[in-house]
């Protein structure tokens, strides 16, 4: 398995500002994913972040709004830019392990609860 931490755990932000969420993993991982969970909703994939390449965004999500960095195999950041109240959600980082019996499993961080006023 993998131990995943996210910072911050929660934040309250003003509209028009930006927030960067950090995801740290205790082991090297091939793929990291960022999900959004809007209030009362299921999880929606925002993008897949591979080390050394540009993130791949899902339909409805764009890099200008959700820029992602993946500088190494254990760390990634997601920025929520120019926030509006509609961005109020839980943002979750997940990882797919590099090889081993957990190769096809994804493990999730605790999430970042964002409220935009």
């Amino acid at each position: 398995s993998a131990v995943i931490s996210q910072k911050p755990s929660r934040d309250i932000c003003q509209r028009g500002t930006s927030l960067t969420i950090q995801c740290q993993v205790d082991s090297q991982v091939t793929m990291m994913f960022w999900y959004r969970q809007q209030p009362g909703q299921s999880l929606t994939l925002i993008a897949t972040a591979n080390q050394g390449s540009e993130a791949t965004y899902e339909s409805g999500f764009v890099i200008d709004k959700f820029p992602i960095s993946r500088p190494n195999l254990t760390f990634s950041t997601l920025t929520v830019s120019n926030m509006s109240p509609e961005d109020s959600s839980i943002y979750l980082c997940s990882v797919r392990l590099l090889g081993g019996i957990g190769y096809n499993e994804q493990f999730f961080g605790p999430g970042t609860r964002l409220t935009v006023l």
Partner: protein
Amino acid sequence: AQSVTQPDIHITVSEGASLELRCNYSYGATPYLFWYVQSPGQGLQLLLKYFSGDTLVQGIKGFEAEFKRSQSSFNLRKPSVHWSDAAEYFCAVGEPEYGNKLVFGAGTILRVKS
């Protein structure tokens, strides 16, 4: 496009009673199937997974799930529910050709009454 359906938004069971949460998927090939649990204010925890082989899989916390290809289902079961099982449960399908990107169902909220 692949999709996951969890037809029950809420389920309430008595403590000690059996539980079955339904999950149906739409996917062309044999999917990778997962059940996750999310307790209030917590992240997602993997309960169990199916990749291939035995269609009845055992997971943590006494949960099991059965893959039925003919019904495109992967229902989650537990013979005796505990109050601590109250949480939201998500079924998910992994897409092997897309690096196992997960598609989630809408979730089922389980309430346990004493």
